[in-house]
């Protein structure tokens, strides 16, 4: 059976070749753009048909995909390699996922996490969340998110108060209602964000979400440091500081705080404190063909 | 000349599930000479097909080895000059007989200028000409068997290995196969075929081997078996003429008004004839009384199975 021996030799050679190619291949596969990695998503109708009685599984695996993808990016961001996240593709995926399983809380939770600060698609986020409220009628988080989006991003305080109240009713915790009362004014923006993020970070179980909340919380707390220094400066000198450097020189800040998103804190002419990063990693959001909506 | 087939100590143990084992062949040794027609006899389950499949490389021997035309059966080229008919053959049934035979001929590297002619010839020999353009799906059992025989002839091999070539054939087909084997014999080809029908063997074979429970129990030329099988003669004499008393030492099998029938053991035949001559007894008919191959076969099988 010389044939068999030849086969085995050949097999060993091929395995060696395989070992040689698999690492570059894996590397190339890992760095594929998210949308390519995700593959073309069939239309929701097709996907519903194909996933047959496994809809929930398909839906949650789509959400999982997005979470893992985003987790990988924040991990790399820590190592200062910033790859622009593909927000439209993430949004598309989440939308498809909730069509398959409208009860999937991860989907809403995570959509809220990245659609707002990062992708700045507040309207889409609120629509998605409102859709979710139809199914997850018991879930106080959804109205809480909507309320925050209205209050913080859209400056629509009436709607914000409405949804915060709903969240309070559902959760039975007055805290959320009082949140609405306490911070719903322009000046309380940073405080509102910090309160929101603290609640979110506490409730987050997924390490990726938790970390992303903590990063943001850190950024806001640092912004708050600058704001406090600014207020002290104005009290003492009777005018607004022109830059963060001025605050440091004047001894109001020990040093210029570092923005974890890689931006720089600044003081706008009207005195408000901002950062060049806008509290988000630089993304590719915005130039999407189908603004994150489902493909229909 | 090269030996057609050489089988040395061939042993095959089938391993079934749960450790069940079947010893299908136990140290089989056999040689088939060039130009020899060999009949491989044995009862059901004796190991005939196992031997043949091993020769064709379809199953691997547990021990021992075999050669065809001095090439080891483990090499593909051992089958180059062999025409093989499987037991209850099945062929790609979506092909027509013509297509299948062309496929086989190509596999045997029949030169393309001969190919067409060979295909037609074997179709004609096996009387499949009219059905040649029909898919084999629609063939009867005997027709498929004929295709099987046709595909052994197509490359004009020197060695034929046929597993029950007569099975499924009508009397005309059987006669045809016998004729073909006799014709191959004339052309100096070797044929090794298995069967349980002794009559076929007697008519066409030079030698027979009898396998029982995986062991070769007998191996002899047909001629020898036939000769050894003669037990005696039945001799008919006319009554009323000569002195019949002189023959009273012989056993009488029967009488009527005109004739008497004696059974004469082979050894005493000459003595009987001379006594009859001396006593003016007229011998009207002499018939050999012998065990036929069937009896020989049954005897051996019985002996083999008793062991």
């Amino acid at each position, binding site marked *: 059976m010389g044939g068999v021996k030849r086969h085995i030799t050949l097999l060993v050679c091929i395995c060696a070749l*395989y070992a040689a190619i698999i690492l570059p291949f894996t590397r190339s596969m*890992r760095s594929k753009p998210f949308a390519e990695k995700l593959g073309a998503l069939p239309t929701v109708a097709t996907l519903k048909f194909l996933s047959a009685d496994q809809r929930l599984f398909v839906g949650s695996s789509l959400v999982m995909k997005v979470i893992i993808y985003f987790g990988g990016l924040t991990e790399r961001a820590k190592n200062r390699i910033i790859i622009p996240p593909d927000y439209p593709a993430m949004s598309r995926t989440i939308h498809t996922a909730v069509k398959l399983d409208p009860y999937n809380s991860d989907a809403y939770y995570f959509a809220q996490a990245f659609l707002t600060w990062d992708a700045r698609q507040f309207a889409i986020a609120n629509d998605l969340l409102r859709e979710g409220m139809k199914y997850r009628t018991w879930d106080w988080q959804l109205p809480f998110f909507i309320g925050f989006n209205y209050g913080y991003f859209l400056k629509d305080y009436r709607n914000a108060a409405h949804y915060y109240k709903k969240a309070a009713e559902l959760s039975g915790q007055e805290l959320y209602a009082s949140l609405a009362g306490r911070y719903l004014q322009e000046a309380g923006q940073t405080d509102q964000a910090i309160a929101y993020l603290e609640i979110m970070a506490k409730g987050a179980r997924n390490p990726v979400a938790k970390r992303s909340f903590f990063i943001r919380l850190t950024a806001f707390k640092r912004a708050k440091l600058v704001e406090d220094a600014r207020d002290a400066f104005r009290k003492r000198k009777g005018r607004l500081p022109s830059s963060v450097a001025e605050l440091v020189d004047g001894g109001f800040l020990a040093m210029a705080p570092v923005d974890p998103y890689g931006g720089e804190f600044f003081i706008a002419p009207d005195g408000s404190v901002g950062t060049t990063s806008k509290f988000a990693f630089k993304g590719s959001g915005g130039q999407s063909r189908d603004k994150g909506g489902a493909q229909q | 000349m090269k030996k057609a087939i050489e089988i040395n100590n061939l042993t095959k143990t089938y391993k079934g599930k749960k450790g069940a084992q079947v010893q299908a062949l136990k140290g089989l040794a056999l040689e088939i000479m060039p130009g020899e027609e060999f009949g491989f006899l044995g009862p059901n389950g004796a190991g005939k097909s196992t031997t043949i499949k091993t020769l064709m490389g379809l199953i*691997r021997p547990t021990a021992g080895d075999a050669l065809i035309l001095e090439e080891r059966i483990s090499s593909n080229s051992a089958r180059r000059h062999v025409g093989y008919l499987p037991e209850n053959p099945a062929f790609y049934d979506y092909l027509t007989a013509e297509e299948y035979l062309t*496929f086989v001929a190509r596999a045997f590297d029949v030169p393309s200028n001969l190919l067409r002619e060979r295909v037609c010839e074997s179709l004609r020999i096996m009387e499949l000409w009219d059905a040649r353009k029909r898919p084999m799906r629609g063939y009867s059992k005997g027709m498929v068997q004929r295709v099987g025989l046709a595909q052994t002839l197509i490359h004009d091999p020197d060695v034929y290995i046929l597993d029950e070539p007569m099975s499924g054939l009508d009397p005309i087909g059987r006669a045809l196969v016998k004729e073909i084997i006799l014709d191959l014999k004339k052309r100096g080809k070797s044929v090794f075929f298995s069967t349980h029908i002794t009559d076929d063997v007697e008519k066409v074979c030079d030698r027979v081997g009898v396998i029982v429970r995986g062991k070769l129990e007998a191996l002899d030329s047909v001629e020898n078996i036939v000769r050894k099988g003669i037990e005696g003669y039945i001799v008919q004499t006319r009554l009323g003429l000569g002195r019949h008393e002189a023959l009273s030492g012989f056993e009488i099998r029967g009488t009527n008004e005109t004739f008497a029938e004696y059974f004469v053991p082979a050894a005493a035949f000459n003595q009987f004839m001379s006594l009859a001559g001396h006593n003016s007894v007229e011998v009207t008919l002499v018939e050999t009384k012998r065990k036929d191959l069937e009896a020989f076969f049954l005897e051996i099988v019985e002996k083999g199975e008793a062991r």
Partner: protein
Amino acid sequence: MLNQVGITLKSILRDRVFHGIIFSALIFLAIPSVASLSMRQMTELSITLSLSLLSFILLLLALFLGGTHLWKDIERRYTYSVLSLPISRTTYLIGKFLGIAFFILVVACLLGLVAAGVIQFSAGIYPPERPIAWENIAAAVVFDALKYILVVATAFLFSSVGTSFFLPIFGTICIFFVGSASQQVYDYITAPATADIPLFTKKAAMVVYYLLPNYSAFDYKVNAAYGVPLDGSGLLLTLGYFVIYLLAVVVLAALLFEKREMN
């Protein structure tokens, strides 16, 4: 070998199940009307749908041809007559495989042309915003065909040891799903989000990842539908991966088949 390839092709073409599968290609005709449901991206949608349908037909063909062909030869005892010819079992197996692989490639190209017609038709009704990236569509079709050729090879691997069609068919389906998801699993276990997974599970998943075919590498549908530029070196690496992996599977199948008993 060529003889074997020819016979294999003949057997495929004369099979009724194959006719049924090809019949399902008629669904292509329905794509333009389905795609017109999309308000904004009719062309993109018809590209996605065409490629998905093509992929699905190829999957059926690959499963059916790869999973049953070898098994049927054994089951119907054709192997007795064919393997007693003076060809090696490797030749037999590879001849069969090449026949099916060639067939899949041809069907992919033909269906690719049909798909191109459908896409062109859709684009004619609602002109797309961006020009259609035909070369991306071609690449997606070809790599899809390669993927399903790999599926056929795994089916052959299972057929070379299995005694019924259960192993080849269901084994191949399992490998197909796991192989399509393995990149995702790999990303999952290497993601920081999952740092608390036991090390053993991670190692086991890594072994599975490196062992099983990575089918997701062959998916270029997004590039085709949205004109996302193709990455040349990525294509080459995938092609190299395909060749090497395919060889390994086919040689292993041949090895197992050589050692197999025909009874």
